[in-house]
């Protein structure tokens, strides 16, 4: 004879009052079972003695799910900056990957490269990764805000590029988040040093090490690095002169004698990583020479001598000088060529 009068006990209880931190204590979250949940297990044993069913016996065990402190900081975007630019942005995301609500303090520090000016941390309220009006400045040492399990916060490092920065320089900044007790500025401490207790919710650090200084594995901190890359236009100017003609040889092997026509050629090249705009070439007419009328060209196109009608002039924008607005030069080798002729006195 076998009996199947089986009693089953299968229950859960949240030992702490939900504070809004837990959307639903029993729901499956990426971060796992909420801290404070009591997990109970009661086994039931049915048996017979001498063919007679006996009263079932049970044995149970419970434990309280502990506070698994885990967080990740990830860098979403770097920034290409030009010298002197202000409010340049590195975007980050902070996520609570633990199983309980915690607050966070933040710090930004230079990992390597050039030092930026006026470095600040903002909460990116609208989460667009850009620095805009609604974003709020973070004050060092405060709690940037509580995050429930799985919740995220968008953050920005905002700084100004030094005027003296040069093309190709980089600046690596680290955003480090430190776990705080929810609603406070008290840094969360792990319970490694105190005795374990299965019926008490205890703190266990589970975070990975990050690149930031002092961010070790299982320390309640995490960090990520964002990179500023300085990109600027680098202009090189090459000026050459050729003799076009002289009064005796004409254009055949002319020599630089009084009365000869000499052509100056000014080539501007942008070898930098950023486009240059509003490039203007100015060149004074050399002593002992006289400008030859109507000889200014820009990229082989003729320009008038008068000011205001086209990109170039003589003696109008700048007295005694040829002035040509070359305009935009593309990064990576964009060039502009200006020529004009003079007569040797």
């Amino acid at each position, binding site marked *: 004879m076998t009996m199947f009068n089986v009693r089953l006990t299968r229950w859960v209880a949240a030992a702490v009052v939900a504070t809004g931190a837990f959307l639903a204590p029993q729901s499956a979250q990426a971060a796992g079972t909420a801290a404070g949940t009591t997990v109970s297990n009661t*086994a039931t044993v049915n048996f017979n*003695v001498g063919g007679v069913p006996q009263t079932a016996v049970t*044995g*149970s065990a419970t*434990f309280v*799910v502990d506070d698994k402190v885990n967080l990740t900081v990830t860098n979403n975007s770097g920034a290409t900056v030009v010298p002197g630019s202000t409010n340049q942005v590195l975007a980050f995301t902070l996520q609570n990957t633990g199983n309980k609500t915690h607050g966070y303090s933040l710090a930004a520090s230079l990992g390597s490269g050039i030092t930026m000016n006026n470095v600040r941390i903002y909460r990116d309220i609208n989460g667009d990764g850009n620095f805009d009006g609604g974003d709020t400045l973070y004050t060092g040492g405060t709690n940037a805000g509580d995050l429930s399990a799985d919740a995220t916060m968008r953050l920005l490092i905002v700084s100004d590029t030094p005027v003296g920065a040069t093309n190709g320089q980089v600046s690596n900044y680290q955003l480090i988040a430190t776990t705080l007790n929810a609603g406070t500025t008290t840094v969360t401490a792990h319970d490694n040093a105190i005795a374990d207790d299965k019926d008490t919710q205890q703190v266990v650090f589970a975070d990975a090490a990050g690149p930031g200084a002092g961010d070790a594995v299982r320390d309640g901190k995490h960090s990520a690095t964002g990179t500023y890359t300085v990109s600027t236009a680098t202009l090189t100017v090459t000026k050459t002169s050729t003799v076009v003609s002289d009064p005796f040889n004409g254009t055949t092997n002319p020599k630089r004698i009084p009365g000869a026509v000499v052509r100056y050629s000014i080539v501007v090249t942008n070898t930098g990583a950023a486009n240059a705009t509003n490039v203007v070439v100015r060149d004074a007419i050399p002593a002992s020479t006289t400008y030859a009328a109507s000889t200014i060209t820009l990229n082989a196109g003729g320009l008038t001598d008068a000011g205001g009608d086209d990109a170039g002039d003589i003696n109008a924008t700048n007295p005694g000088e040829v002035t040509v607005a070359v305009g935009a030069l593309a990064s990576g080798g964009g060039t502009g060529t200006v020529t004009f002729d003079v007569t040797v006195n």
Partner: protein
Amino acid sequence: MRSPFFVLSAAALLAGAAFAASPMSVTTLVEKEVVVRDTKGGVKVNRIPALTVVPGDTVVYTYNLKNGGKAPSENIIIVAPIPAQMKYIDKSATTQSTIVTFSVDAGKSFGEAAKLEVTDKDGKRRPAGAGDYTHIRWVMSVPLDGGTARAVAFRAVLE
């Protein structure tokens, strides 16, 4: 409660007081598996009392069955729930001298692992996986003699 053992439920004690003390008792032991490295660089899995448990930890439930009486107990059936927050680790239930079956319907019915099915969210039937089990049942094929003990166990991960 410091001890990981819990001896008998109140119901069982009452029943024992009203009639005769039950010869059988079961204690539930909860342990956590931790991976440790020995000095030679090898890896082994130790079991420690499940005092600090966080999501991702593997927990071992052991049910120690003891027959304190003189007569053998027969037809022993042990039913253990898999807590809702935990996921059973496939093939982790001990099988010595027992037939192990599982339930996917909160203990209403039990069947062999390979034959269980569940209904998906989209209404389709599919073979049940370890994550679908709600209860484990051990049916012992041999009696437990008086004065002897036996244990069954399974492992699960806290989600």
